[in-house]
C-alpha cells in the first residue's frame, strides 16, 4: 500500500483541555496486567484515538491519547505501569484507584503493591486519584518529564506480567 509517511515524523501539537474544567472523578480507567498498561480517558468512556509519546518523557512510558481529527488530548496511556513507573514514582499508584482490572484480582494487585512496598490504604487526600492525575497532567502539559530516564523494570513484577499472558 502506498502511504504518505510524512505525518508519522511531523511534529504534532496536542490540544490540551482546560484541566480545571475536567471532572477527573468520572474518568474511565482500566489497568491491564498482560500489557502492564494503565489507560485513562477523561470523558468518562473509552473513545477511538491514537497514541503519541510525551515528548519530554525519556523513559518512553507515557503516551497521550489524541483524537485523530482534532489532536485533542482525550486520555493517557501509561506502559510498564507496575514494573517501571510505580517503582520510580510510588505516588502514581493512586491512579489505579477505581480502575477496572484486567487479568488480575484486587488481591493480586494488593500483593504486587506489597512487593513494591506500597500500602494503598495510606493514601492521603492530596494523593487521591483526582489530585495525582491532575498533577501528572499538569507536568506533562508543561513539558516536565514524568520519569528522569529509562529505568530497568522490577523483575518480580515483570514475572507476574509475563505469566498473565497465558502460556
Amino acid at each position: 500500500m502506498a502511504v504518505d509517511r510524512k505525518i508519522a515524523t511531523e511534529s504534532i501539537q496536542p490540544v490540551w483541555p482546560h484541566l480545571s474544567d475536567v471532572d477527573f472523578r468520572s474518568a474511565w480507567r482500566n489497568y491491564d496486567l498482560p500489557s502492564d498498561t494503565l489507560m485513562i480517558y477523561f470523558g468518562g468512556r473509552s473513545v477511538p484515538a491514537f497514541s503519541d509519546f510525551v515528548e519530554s518523557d525519556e523513559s518512553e512510558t507515557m503516551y497521550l491519547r489524541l483524537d485523530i481529527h482534532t489532536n485533542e488530548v482525550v486520555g493517557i496511556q501509561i506502559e510498564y505501569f507496575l514494573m517501571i513507573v510505580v517503582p520510580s514514582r510510588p505516588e502514581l499508584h493512586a491512579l489505579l484507584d477505581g480502575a477496572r482490572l484486567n487479568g488480575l484480582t484486587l488481591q493480586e494487585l494488593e500483593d504486587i503493591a506489597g512487593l513494591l512496598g506500597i500500602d494503598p490504604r495510606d493514601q492521603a487526600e492530596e494523593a487521591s486519584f483526582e489530585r495525582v492525575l491532575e498533577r501528572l497532567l499538569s507536568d506533562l502539559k508543561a513539558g516536565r518529564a514524568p520519569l528522569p530516564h529509562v529505568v530497568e523494570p522490577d523483575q518480580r513484577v515483570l514475572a507476574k506480567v509475563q505469566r498473565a499472558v497465558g502460556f
Partner: protein
Amino acid sequence: MPPILRLRDRWGREIVLTEEIWFDHVLPGHRELAAHLSAVERTIVDADQVNRDAGASNRENFYLMGALPDPYQHLYLKVCVQFQRSAADAIIGRVVTAFPARKIKASEVKRWP
C-alpha cells in the same frame, strides 16, 4: 482461550491472538481497532519494522504504517508479541496488545530490517 488469529511471522514463528486478549484486553481501551483484526494480521506478517521491546527481553514489537484505514492510515499499527518456548520446543508468540502510534520508540532495539 481459543485463538482468533493463528499465523506465522517472517521468521516462521507461530503467533496467536486469543479471543480473551482481543476482546477483554485490547478493544476496551482501543476502540479504534474494532473491526480491524485483519490489520493486526497484516502487521505481523508484513511489518515495516520489528523491534525488541525495551522492557521485556522476550517481547517484540511489530510496526506497519498504513495497516489501518482512513483516518489512521498515516500512523503505525504497533503489535506487541510475547514469545516463549513451548513444551514441544517450538517458539510460539502471543499477541499482548495493539494500538495505532505516531512514532516508534527510540529506546527499542531494531531487529528487522
